[in-house]
């Protein structure tokens, strides 16, 4: 009897488990179908939804909602179990034996007749395979789901829907915020590397603004106002710093300044560790030779000390310190100028985008633009073509036009060096003259010559080689 009882218990358990699995599968399919259906109908209205609510998010959201609803409404109950067992009886013509046996299994005391029911049910269910008996059946939503899924994908792919101003505005906001953050990050990195204190402060402020905008704490309009205000402040900072002492007012090229700073650093390292006690002592011929190999620095020294023979080492050291500060201040000014220009352009571009967005959404712009402004705005507007994200990126001002590029290479075993070059974006023509490149080579050679890695006997040979490079160019 135990055997038949176990058989009945096992078979009923298998059957109910299988039916439950089928129910879950059907529920998931139904949920997906209805989620796709509703999402497809909502696609035209996608423009009114928040930007973070993408079509995929909407689909996922409805899938979760429908799943929860269906799982709740179609949850497995005792009547489901009863119906399933009844179907088994019906299918096998068992005359309610399994149904009766299932109830008997739940009783503690069993009458002899009830035991007989259990035995008969067990004998008849022994060879029954629920999965084979009750195969999966597919309803209409199963067959329609792939079709509607394809339809939904196509609709998403072709960006079907109304592009509302609010969404485009939000899109623009995020784009402006991201650009500002990226720019501030770039400036911060450069400022830290080059020790540009003022630029670093401004860059940090910019990042703070960008963060607020991205988090939705700062509206697009407020951001534009802030950008404009910040551009004004930066302008003031530039004019204030321009009033300070400047040794090289002619040097306005960031690359030249970077080179000059590198030469100053290299020459400082070449100077003896102990400064001379007396002023007016002439420079060593070796030092003069090295100075001659540094074109930017030698130019500045010639301007300051027309007679190099009378220049003492102490005076030269003081001059180098002063020159270093001036160069750094000039670099800071240039960077601030770059920031100011970028902020102004960014503010203009953002304003243009907003107007274009409103125009596309069929709304009246708050102020009418001139044709030229409209053209500019259109050029940088979001969504001039479907899915043209790249164009939106390009519409914003390029802040890297004058930034020094890094040319990296290996100069010695296990050591790499970078050569700052002022070049155009990839694909353009180099703006760096051959002289500058040679000067850079010389400067780096001087740095290496100052180190102990190069044998003393070879130092003169190397120096002569690099000096000959410059002479050969001049002769040509």
């Amino acid at each position, binding site marked *: *009897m135990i055997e038949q009882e176990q058989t009945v218990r096992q078979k009923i358990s298998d059957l109910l488990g299988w039916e439950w699995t089928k129910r879950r599968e059907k529920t998931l399919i139904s949920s997906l179908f209805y989620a796709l259906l509703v999402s497809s109908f909502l696609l035209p209205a996608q423009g009114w939804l928040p930007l973070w609510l993408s079509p995929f998010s909407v689909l996922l959201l409805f899938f979760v909602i429908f799943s929860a609803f269906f799982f709740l409404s179609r949850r497995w109950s005792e*009547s489901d179990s*009863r*119906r399933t067992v*009844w179907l088994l009886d019906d299918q096998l013509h068992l*005359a*309610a*034996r399994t*149904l*009766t046996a*299932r*109830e*008997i299994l739940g009783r503690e005391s069993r*009458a*002899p*007749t*009830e*035991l*007989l*029911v259990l*035995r*008969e049910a067990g004998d008849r269910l022994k060879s029954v395979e629920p999965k084979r008996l009750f195969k999966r059946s597919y309803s209409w939503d199963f067959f329609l789901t792939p079709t509607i899924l394809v339809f939904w994908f196509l609709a998403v792919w072709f960006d079907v829907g109304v592009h509302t101003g609010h969404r485009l505005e939000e899109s623009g906001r995020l784009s402006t915020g991201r650009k500002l953050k990226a720019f501030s990050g770039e400036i911060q990195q450069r400022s830290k590397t080059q020790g540009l204190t003022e630029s670093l402060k401004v860059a940090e402020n910019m990042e703070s603004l960008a963060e607020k905008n991205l988090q939705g704490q700062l509206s697009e309009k407020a951001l534009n106002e802030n950008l404009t205000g910040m551009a004004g402040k930066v302008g003031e900072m530039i004019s204030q710093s321009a009033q300070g002492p400047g040794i090289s007012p002619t040097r306005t090229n960031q690359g030249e300044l970077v080179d000059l700073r590198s030469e100053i650093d290299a020459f400082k390292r070449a100077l003896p560790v102990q400064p001379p006690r007396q002023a007016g002592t002439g420079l060593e011929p070796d030092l003069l030779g090295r100075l001659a190999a540094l074109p930017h620095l030698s130019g500045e020294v010639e301007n300051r000390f027309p007679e190099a023979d009378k220049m003492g080492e102490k005076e030269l050291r003081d001059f180098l310190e002063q020159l270093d500060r001036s160069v750094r201040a000039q670099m800071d000014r240039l960077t601030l100028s770059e920031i100011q220009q970028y902020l102004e352009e960014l503010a203009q571009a953002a304003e243009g985008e907003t107007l274009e967005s409103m125009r596309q959404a069929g709304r009246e712009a708050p102020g009418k633009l001139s044709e030229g402004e409209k053209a500019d705005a259109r050029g940088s507007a979001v969504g001039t073509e479907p899915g043209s994200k790249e164009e939106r990126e390009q519409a914003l001002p390029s802040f890297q036009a004058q930034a020094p590029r890094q040319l990296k290479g290996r100069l010695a075993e296990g050591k790499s060096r970078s050569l700052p070059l002022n070049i155009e974006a990839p694909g353009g023509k180099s703006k760096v003259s051959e002289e500058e490149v040679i000067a850079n080579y010389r400067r780096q050679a001087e740095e290496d010559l100052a180190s102990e890695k190069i044998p003393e006997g070879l130092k003169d040979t190397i120096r002569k080689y690099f000096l000959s490079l410059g002479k050969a160019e001049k002769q040509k």
Partner: protein
Amino acid sequence: MEALEEIQERMTGCRRAFEELKAEMGRAVVGHEDLIEHVFIALVCGGHCLLEGVPGLGKTLMVRSLGEILNLSFSRIQFTPDLMPADITGTNILTEDGLGKKVFDFQRGPIFAHVVLADEINRATPKTQSALLEAMQEQSVTVGGKLHRLESPFMVLATQNPIEMEGTYPLPEAQIDRFFFKLLLRYPSHAELARIADLTTAAPSLPLREVLDGESVLRIRRWVREVPIAEAVKDFAVRLVLSTHPQGENSLPMAQKYIQYGSSPRGLQSLILAAKARALLSGRPNVSFEDIRAVALPSLRHRVILNLEADAGGVSAETVLAEALERVAEVL
């Protein structure tokens, strides 16, 4: 395990006995297989049957044959308007005992038999009908203040003619309700008629063989009540009964339209008990939905009281019940 084998043997025995009974009845009664089955089910359930059919369909023959096969005493009462209760139950007659003393001696009426055929019960007055119905219900009669028990098994098969209604006293609903089954006798088919002609006009055949005795019937009665029924099957029977109620929660549109009063709780008792008996006689240890369906009409048709609209529309209780059997789901 031994008990199980015994029960299994019991089931098999019941099925075999029933098959033999049907075969033996088939020798005397042509057709009416379902009727014979229902009569036997009523017998093993301790119920009484109301047979409705035109004269000459073999009602008396069937009841007498049943008595012979079961080796039970049989009596027939022809109900007439002047039939008195005492003519059924019996009466006290003044007689002299051995000492010459006058004493009342109870003369038992025809009700004192195992199987009683109450022919054309609707022709007797309500008073006489009541006497019979009381005996059916109590399985005893009280005459002169003394209670007289009827022998077990006791079964009344009452007949009534559905076409001759003049001068009849239709049974009140409360009394009809006391019948376990109401069975309808249909007219025999062509083949059955031909066979009836052969049987009744040829030389008499061998007497019917006794298949069961009264004791066996009483034993089966006890076993019937031991047959288990699943809650789902019982629920189906309950919903079926409730569906006949016009004001019920699950009543059918047809019931709402044509039924005045639905089945009484006795209908449910009859339905389930008859289903159990059917399962047992089929050699099955449990009640199935099919058992309920098979006994639904004889159990409920006389318990459903139709309204005037149904009479006017020619809608019978069978039609409404057939609708209920079709519409009510076996499992919810």
